[in-house]
């Protein structure tokens, strides 16, 4: 079986660039930002397939998990500035 394009929510390391779109894997989210044109040509087809693969993997992972209503962040602490 071919290596997965991304392992959603499984690590904090994977980063993909599809055109000007950035996809970053985190434990609590998959971040997708930037913008892209899916053109009606062969390049557009490749992009559409890649995006579908990413979303299919993400959806499968979400559907098989027990999900909270809303993910909780770990709050930052407040500390003294060491440089002042």
């Amino acid at each position: 079986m071919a290596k997965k394009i991304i392992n959603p929510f499984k690590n904090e390391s994977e980063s993909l660039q599809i055109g000007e779109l950035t996809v970053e894997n985190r434990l609590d989210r998959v971040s997708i930002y930037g913008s892209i044109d899916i053109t009606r040509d062969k390049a557009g087809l490749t992009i559409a397939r890649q995006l579908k693969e990413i979303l299919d993997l993400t959806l499968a992972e979400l559907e098989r998990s027990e999900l909270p209503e809303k993910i909780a962040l770990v709050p930052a602490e407040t500390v003294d500035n060491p440089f002042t």
Partner: protein
Amino acid sequence: MKSLRVIFLAAFLLMTSTIVDAAQTNCPEHYAGSQAPDFINHKLSFKAREVCYSEFGLMHSGVTRTPLYSAEHLTLDRLTLAKSMKRHSKFFPDPNIPVSERAELHHYARSGYDRGHMAPSADMSDEKSQQECFSLANMVPQVPENNRGPWEGIESAVRKLAKDRGELYIVTGPIFKGEKLQRIGGEVMVPTLLFKAIYDPKRQEAGAYLIDNAVGAQPQKISIAELEKISGINVFPSVSQRVRTRAMNLPDTRAHKERRQRGGR
């Protein structure tokens, strides 16, 4: 007695200037005039370590577990190659930094912050440097709206400027201001501001973008001398005072979204 005092003073000045000028670097090719930035605020130098990569050099702080700056020499050739790079990369804790001083992937997990590149991935022209720039030693905790919006606009404007000018020296970094700071994962400090300093060696001009690491922030354009005061870092020690005090006419920046709406890149 007076002459003795003068000698002492002279010796002191000589010493401090040696310290200040001692921008020891193992990768002079990334820095304007082959000189790495100098710390004006000496507290910054505690647990500071240089890491040299193929297309950028950085100074890492074991105190904040972030870079204090990342430096690059951008050229038209390099950016032309960078444009066609396929980018599948992995963020990684930097093996050049002791575990007791570096950021780990888990420090950023569930923090709500992006891992914001200082030397941007879109500047890298080959696979090796592309992967290298995903080192956590090149990252700061950045507010996502900032990273993906106005900051990306700055990075993009600087790439375009470098292509137009043929070459530029760039120093990018975080600034930690105020009495108190936010810290994530128990270890990594969140900068309050970010800067990107630009030097054009041919036209002999320089300037910097400065932006709050916050939602809704917009970049300011300042001189290198002003940046020195705010950041405590002399980013271009080889550049003349005259060039540093006069802010160059930096291009306006537009976030990705606005560029697309206007049909441009």
